[in-house]
């Protein structure tokens, strides 16, 4: 009985509490490598919670015990800011990215305009109402005047990786994802890279959450993210350096 209680207590408590980082799902592989490097450099254990930035922002606003938040866009960081939950002076951009259009390797899609063709049945994007990758995609498609024509084909997904998966298993003909996501799915083809004056400016802002119980450890991890070791890891995974404001 006592043993069972101790086991339960141990399970619930965990050992030394790690720094909890809620991060945009597109950062998954890169941040796991950063955390390993952080450990190797003598830093504490980091526990990740990966999901669509909008889901993470909602969790934080509702009081989830999170130390660091890394969003895939400004809009979701603003959700946390409006709730007064960014620890003063800790907000900083840590990476940049590019939007790409991916499709199956055997696809007939050659350009963005081909998305209007009849054989393109479904286009997966993160839910444009909140998922950053979807919001970027929608804004861009509106800017170039394609959104209205493509909207009936849009399948909104809960995060950017779910859009990628939909193309991988053949449920969608194409998806708008980040260039870094496309690298995780080498079987898919990058049909177009969104560049030019109308291309969305994609940044990943990070912050320490004001209610963190270990603000110093959290700030240390954010600083590490902005340092040269993390920058090299992020670059290796295809992320751009954060653009100067």
């Amino acid at each position: 009985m006592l043993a069972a209680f101790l086991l339960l207590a141990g399970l619930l408590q965990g050992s030394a509490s790690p720094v909890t980082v809620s991060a945009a799902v597109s950062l998954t592989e890169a941040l796991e490598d950063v955390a390993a490097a952080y450990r190797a450099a003598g830093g504490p254990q980091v526990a990740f919670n990966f999901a669509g930035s909008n889901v993470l922002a909602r969790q934080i606003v509702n009081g989830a015990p999170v130390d660091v938040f890394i969003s895939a866009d400004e809009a979701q960081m603003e959700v946390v800011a409006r709730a007064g939950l960014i620890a003063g002076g800790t907000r900083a951009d840590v990476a940049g990215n590019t939007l790409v259009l991916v499709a199956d390797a055997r696809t007939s899609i050659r350009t963005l305009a081909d998305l209007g063709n009849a054989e393109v049945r479904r286009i997966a994007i993160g839910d444009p109402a909140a998922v950053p990758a979807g919001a970027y995609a929608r804004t861009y498609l509106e800017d170039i005047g394609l959104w209205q024509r493509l909207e009936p084909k849009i399948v909104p997904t809960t995060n950017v990786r779910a859009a990628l998966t939909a193309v991988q298993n053949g449920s969608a003909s194409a998806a708008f994802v980040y260039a870094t996501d496309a690298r995780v799915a080498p079987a898919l083809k990058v049909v177009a890279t969104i560049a030019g004056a109308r291309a969305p400016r994609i940044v990943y802002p990070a912050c320490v959450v004001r209610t963190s119980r270990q603000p110093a450890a959290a700030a240390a991890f954010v600083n590490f993210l902005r340092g040269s070791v993390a920058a090299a890891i992020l670059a290796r995974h295809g992320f751009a350096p954060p653009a100067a404001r």
Partner: protein
Amino acid sequence: MNLWQITSFTLMAALAATLLMLPFGLLLAWVLARGQFRGRVLLDTLVSLPLVMPPVATGLLLLMLFAPRGPIGALLARVGIEVVFTRKAVVLAMAIMALPLFVRTARAGFEQVERRYEAVAATLGAPPWRVFLTVSLPLAAPSLIAATVLGFARSIGEFGATIVIAGSIPGSTRTLAVAIYSFAETGNDRAAVVLVAVSAAIAFAALWISTALAPGSGVRR
């Protein structure tokens, strides 16, 4: 948000799913209640699996089977049928999740039918299908109706498997449960709360009916 569209689609899909699983469910419940054969426990376990497996796992299994690259999905694609991200996927997910609940309840109903009535019918020359239709089915009817309502209610609440295989496409595959999730995670709390109220009302009504109809509920029939 189109409250009426979401609600009516959810009700229609749940109805379709209930009708779809009903023949299979009746057969399974009957076989499990009365059949004497090897592998009965195995069949019982398999049918009940979706009840205890994480719904997301069930959804993933369905996705792997029905995706255009999956074994069943590839066959269906050849005859021009798409399942994933369509309304068919919603009905499929609901039916699979409702089946075990129906079978367990209906089976208990069949088990409560006195065997001697069935035996008498059989000695009077009725073949098994006729015994089933004219004796077992009417005698178990209250349980079967309760089981059907329960399956229907479970369909309405289905979320985990649906979000995986049908997605959350507004005006198409978005059911009450999926819409609540989508609205909540995109910050549209007001819409989410309205839908929570609607689904609570439907669930309440369905459970009320199911309980009132179940044998031994004390309600006069």
